């Protein structure tokens, strides 16, 4: 066997060894991709199913005017209904995210804040947190119709009044997961990843 043949065989062995390492690395990369995948808003099993028409509820805003929530819209905008409370600390931490989302998504989305209880408390909450740009409705039946048990809870309705995504939102990532779920045509990001796992 000549020196060239020996070096050829050794090189092949090295190449094959390296390729096995690369294959293991790509597999590891796949595992990492799954671990750091975005977390979707927590879906609760109870309540309306995604794809169902949302209930049309008459609610009153902070000025006492009647607002219809859940009906088909003529302006073509989708509605993000976010259930909040002035006593919920997570809701407060989410307000900055909401303000930036309102600006970023205003071409297709209107964010409506919803709650119930004493009007004066809510007016104070809106003033102190600079939420005057958001429609803010007070209605106990609205919360009950979506079976909201924990806050902050969000429901995304499309322009026809159909529920497109819903869930508990604690962060920007959770909130944006609802927008992504609507864009991808899935009920939740969890469903999206499960289908592609």
């Amino acid at each position, binding site marked *: 066997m000549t020196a060239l*043949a020996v070096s*050829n*065989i050794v090189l*092949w062995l090295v*190449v*094959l060894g390296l*390729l*096995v390492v*690369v*294959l293991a690395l*790509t*597999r590891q*990369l*796949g595992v990492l*991709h799954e671990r750091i*995948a*975005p977390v979707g808003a927590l879906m609760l099993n109870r309540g309306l199913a995604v794809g169902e028409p949302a209930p049309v509820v008459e609610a009153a805003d902070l000025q006492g005017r009647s607002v219809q929530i859940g009906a088909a819209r003529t302006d073509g905008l989708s509605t993000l209904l976010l259930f909040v409370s002035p006593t919920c600390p997570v809701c407060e931490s989410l307000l900055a995210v909401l303000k930036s989302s309102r600006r970023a998504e205003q071409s297709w989305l209107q964010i409506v804040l919803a709650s119930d209880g004493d009007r004066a408390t809510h007016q104070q909450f809106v003033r102190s947190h600079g939420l005057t740009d958001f429609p803010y409705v007070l209605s106990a039946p609205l919360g009950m119709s979506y079976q909201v048990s924990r806050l902050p809870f969000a429901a995304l309705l499309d322009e026809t009044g159909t529920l497109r995504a819903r869930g508990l939102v604690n962060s920007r*990532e959770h909130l*944006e*997961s609802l927008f*992504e779920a609507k*864009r*991808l045509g899935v009920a939740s*990001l969890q469903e*999206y990843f499960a*289908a*592609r796992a």
Partner: protein
Amino acid sequence: MMVYDAGRMTKLMLDPAIGTLIVLCLALLFAGAGSHKLRDLPQFSAIFAAYELLPQLARPQLAVLVPLLECLLACGLLVRRTRTPAVVAAMLLLLGYAAAIGINLRRGRSDLACGCGGFDARRVIAPWMLWRNVLLVAVLGLVLLPWSARALEWLDAVTVGCGTVTCGLVYLCLDRLLGQSARSSALRIS
């Protein structure tokens, strides 16, 4: 890789070891793709129909013919006498696939399952698949060059054997990496 004849008329020739390596790799690719499709024919039938390129009636029959043709091409590539027609047919088939993918991409249907017979059956079609097919056609085209008459020796067996395994592993790695990037790039979320 190529033998360059001295003289006035320059003639490109393919070294038999390289030719055998290409033929083996492509035969493996077609055999793998065909057997994968045959294993889950109903799924491939559905994917094939979703391409919406042929009349409704012809779809079920052709969905069976495609994997059979791929397996036939794999065998044809390995036999010396049938190699040339098999190479031409394989090139046409790959170009056909590229056209089918290109037409559906132009229709804006980027969520269509590829049905390429890879490890991820739900892999969606993407522009890189067109370039992959063009590259495979170009590599197959090399086999149509006249092969030089060099006698193969034992070291060529090492080259062909290790080369085939290497190409297979590289294909596997690329397949995984592109699949992962397609999954994560579909999301705009940060």
